[in-house]
């Protein structure tokens, strides 16, 4: 009985009966169950040996180290303070965001890393320009603003992906052979939607995200559109979702004409429930 309970094999009535008894505080039965859990855990060794990819450890350790750094500074701090090494916090946050995104998509992290490097180089050039003439300063300011906006976007993505209060929503493919998508929804910072090896929409059509409201009879609320890259990958940030997560029961993805639609014109290809 205890072994079957630890194994999860008891049918609901038997399980309920045993749990009701355990709830009375029977220490002897509780100890038997605990010992049975150990016995059952040994069955894991029946699994054929397999090894994880090297990339998994790389991604995991990057995330862990990024977590450690994030604990020492606010993930969305916009102050102009610097680290002990003199590097501005906003730049540290950007690098942390890069590392985290590597966890999800190596390709995307590489792309963003290149963008950051280019942005830093551009920043240096801009600073030289600012020092030269008023006109050049104006141009530099525009580029700096663009770069700061990009960094702010990365910080926001970083916050969504690392904050424990973010809710993970898995969107399963509906009637098509395709990998699932993953969305992380933070009530304050928005949604990060990611996809890998996603089939390319036909022609110039796009994938569109919809928020399905909880309220009966409510219509799906349109959100962002995206086309995956040549490898079927994408990461997209929804800074201002059209509805609150508390009012949303599911996320859905449909294929729509370029530019998106006000209402779905096709049946969802991916759906993920909020709860």
């Amino acid at each position, binding site marked *: 009985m205890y072994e079957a309970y630890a194994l999860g094999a008891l049918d609901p009535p038997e399980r309920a009966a045993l749990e009701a008894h355990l709830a009375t505080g029977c220490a002897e039965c509780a100890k038997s169950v605990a010992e049975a859990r150990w016995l059952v855990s040994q069955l894991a060794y*029946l699994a054929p040996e397999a090894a994880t990819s090297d990339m998994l450890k790389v991604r995991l350790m990057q995330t862990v180290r990024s977590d450690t750094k994030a604990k020492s500074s606010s993930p969305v701090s916009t102050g102009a303070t610097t680290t002990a090494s003199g590097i501005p916090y906003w730049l540290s946050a950007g690098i942390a965001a890069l590392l985290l995104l590597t966890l999800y998509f190596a390709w995307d992290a590489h792309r963003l890393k290149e963008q950051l490097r280019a942005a830093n180089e551009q920043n240096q050039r801009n600073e030289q320009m600012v020092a030269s003439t008023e006109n050049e300063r104006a141009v530099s300011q525009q580029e700096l603003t663009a770069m700061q906006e990009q960094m702010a976007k990365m910080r926001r993505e970083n916050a969504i992906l690392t904050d424990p209060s973010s809710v993970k929503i898995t969107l399963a493919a509906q009637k098509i052979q395709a990998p699932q998508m993953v969305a992380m929804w933070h009530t304050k910072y928005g949604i990060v939607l990611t996809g890998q090896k996603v089939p390319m929409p036909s022609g110039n059509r796009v994938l569109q995200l919809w928020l399905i409201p909880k309220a009966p009879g409510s219509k799906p609320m349109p959100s962002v559109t995206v086309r995956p890259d040549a490898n079927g990958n994408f990461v997209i940030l929804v800074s201002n979702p059209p509805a609150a997560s508390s009012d949303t029961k599911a996320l859905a993805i449909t294929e729509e004409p370029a530019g998106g639609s006000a209402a779905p014109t096709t049946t969802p290809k991916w759906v993920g429930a909020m709860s």
Partner: protein
Amino acid sequence: MFLAAISPKDNREASPDAALVRLLLQNDVGAFEKIYDKYSRIVYSLVLRIVQQSGPAEEVVQDVFLQLWRNSTQYDAARGPFVPWLLTLARNRALDTLRLKSERQRRLENQTDELFSVVVAPQYEKELDEKRRAERVRSLVGQLNPQQKRAIELAYFQGLSHSEIAAELKEPLGTVKSWIRNGLIRLKEGLHTAS
């Protein structure tokens, strides 16, 4: 909470990774890496056996170790040895994935179980390396009759109940219960004798 009635003393002493886990609780990255290096193989093997696909299996393994890192305080040495706890967590996560449960559902349904599950190693249990432990368990389960082994595997790796296994194997419910009960008892006795 009823499980807190069990004395923690023996478990602490039986835990072979107590020092590493203590460092993990202090957010020691090096300790986390050592734990990953030591146990990612068995965790991944278990998860892959359950979910059958390498991509989702790696995602589950990643979730398990990130949960370990971010919520290491969930593991309480007083509640039992570390590795069985980790394997139980990994199995639950993998079965959730197999059943296509959402993360939120999993949190609602199983978090309490995971946090408060107590695992007690028997007195005869020795500290074995993972390879020897695997050889011992495989040898003992290999001695069971094929149907017994199949029934236990369906329960453990697919999360099926007695009734579901009986339907799957087209055998009477009572027979399936006996197979599983007797099979696990033989495994327990075998582990005891081998120690």
